[in-house]
């Protein structure tokens, strides 16, 4: 009677093992790459948020220092690579009985764009 060799070291088993480990390692590396990409996107998002908040505060500060009808000069230097924009493009300080609506836009170096509306007034 012929005995079956169950040592588990046939060529087929080794090949299958290598394939499975290869697929697993590939999946893990892909997962890590995805996590890294998500981390970068999250960091860009947080940085954009910080720039947006700073820009909004700069706009509010500018409105507190100007007279009604005068140009609203927002002095703000964003982080390197970030661009900021305000609409209307040439805002003016509002009359004391009203407010000025500003739409702020921040664009990150990666292309991520955030928009936010604020209202400013003169004291």
């Amino acid at each position, binding site marked *: 009677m012929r005995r079956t060799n169950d040592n588990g070291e046939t060529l087929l088993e080794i090949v299958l093992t290598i394939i499975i480990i290869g697929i697993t390692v590939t999946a893990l590396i892909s997962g890590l790459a995805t996590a890294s990409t998500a981390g970068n996107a999250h960091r860009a998002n947080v940085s954009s948020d910080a720039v947006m908040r700073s820009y909004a505060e700069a706009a509010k500060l500018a409105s507190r220092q100007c007279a009604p009808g005068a140009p609203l000069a927002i002095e703000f230097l964003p982080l390197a690579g970030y661009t900021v924009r305000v609409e209307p493009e040439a805002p003016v300080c509002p009359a004391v009985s009203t407010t000025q609506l500003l739409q702020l836009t921040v664009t990150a170096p990666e292309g991520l764009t955030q928009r936010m509306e604020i209202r400013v*007034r003169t004291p």
Partner: protein
Amino acid sequence: MKVSTETVGSPSPDRGSTLIIAIGFVMAIGSIAAGLSALVVSSMNSRGTLIELRDTEYAADGAIEAAIAEVRTQPGDLSSACGDMAGSRVEVLNGQSIRVDWYNACGVVRGGDGAVVAQRNVIFAACPDTGATCLEDAIVIRAQVNFEQTTTGAVTETFVQTWSVNR
């Protein structure tokens, strides 16, 4: 004749260890995959929450600024700066509807000549609009503003005395 001591058909001593190793391997890979998925999902949720919080905060900020401008056009009664002046308004900003309630919170100071002078202070509270007065838990920003007036009652300048944001 050579006789094998191994019993034909009996399990080898390490049989079954392969299954345990395989299960452990699968669990390890599963844990790593679950961790990575959780990380990505968490990042996505954080992003949404961050932007939503900021939009709400600045919507409340803008709504209070608009309310201050409105109150400024309502000259205070010089004979009773501590009167029952109150009001509310709703402002839509960043796609969010914000309600602002305000009421008088008079103050009294003694002037340089010793005379008692009433201060026209107003407390503003902003919250997401539900159609009713802002509840304490829902208030996003609470501010107290002093309205400086001339002897005719016209407001000449406003001074923000407190401005607290509830995040």
